[in-house]
């Protein structure tokens, strides 16, 4: 019984039933498979998180985002007060997470790749792109650069999914994706 000491003094050499051995074999191979699946996806898959990260002072990052907005601003996002920014395909795009907003509103072209910079001015936030359901953690002091390629056009939302205090549930952002060559 499992609540009593083993009956034999030497239990290590007791035979193991075949059924048990077979299952251990299958489980071990399945584990190896799942391990190599992650590596395979790094080589062949298209969805891998970039490892390009820099340490940056939060106020320095805010300045970079402001300069970026100034350079590519094409107008306002309705009457929300948010600048609408349309950077050229392939360029560096900046998004600022801060209490409690993602700033500015971005306009990207479908099928084009962008180097999206993510960082926070204050606390940790969660970049959760919906309804795509793509989630990346955002830290103050770390500038994370991910290359992202929208595959569909429409209006997408960014929801903060890291608890960031009293206004956490008001913290949203927006990314507009337009057909190539339109909207600039």
């Amino acid at each position, binding site marked *: 019984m499992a609540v009593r000491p083993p009956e034999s003094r030497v*239990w290590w050499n007791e035979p193991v039933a075949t059924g048990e051995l077979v299952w251990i074999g299958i489980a071990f191979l399945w584990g190896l498979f799942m391990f190599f699946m992650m590596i395979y996806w790094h080589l062949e898959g298209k969805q891998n998180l970039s490892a390009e*990260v820099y340490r940056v002072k939060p106020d320095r990052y805010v300045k970079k985002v402001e300069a970026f907005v100034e350079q590519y601003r094409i107008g306002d996002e309705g009457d929300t007060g948010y600048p609408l920014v349309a950077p050229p395909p392939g360029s560096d795009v900046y998004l600022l997470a801060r209490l409690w907003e993602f700033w500015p509103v971005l306009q990207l072209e479908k099928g084009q790749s962008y180097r999206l910079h993510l960082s926070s001015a204050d606390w940790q936030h969660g970049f959760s792109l919906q309804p795509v359901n793509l989630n990346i953690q955002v830290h103050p002091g770390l500038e994370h650069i991910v290359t992202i390629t929208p595959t569909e056009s429409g209006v997408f939302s960014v929801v903060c999914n890291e608890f960031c205090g009293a206004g956490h549930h008001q913290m949203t952002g927006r990314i507009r994706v337009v057909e190539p060559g339109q909207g600039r």
Partner: protein
Amino acid sequence: MSDTGTSEKIPFMQRVLDNPFLLLFLGVTVPATLYLVWGLVELTQIPVAE
């Protein structure tokens, strides 16, 4: 209980499993090295933005 094989030598792996303090040592050092130390070293190597 130890009726048979009283003289049989206890196999190495059984002795390992019978030694809680060895297990304690391994159970602390293995994750401390592979998870904590390795991870912390990576954090110190993040380059600074220009």
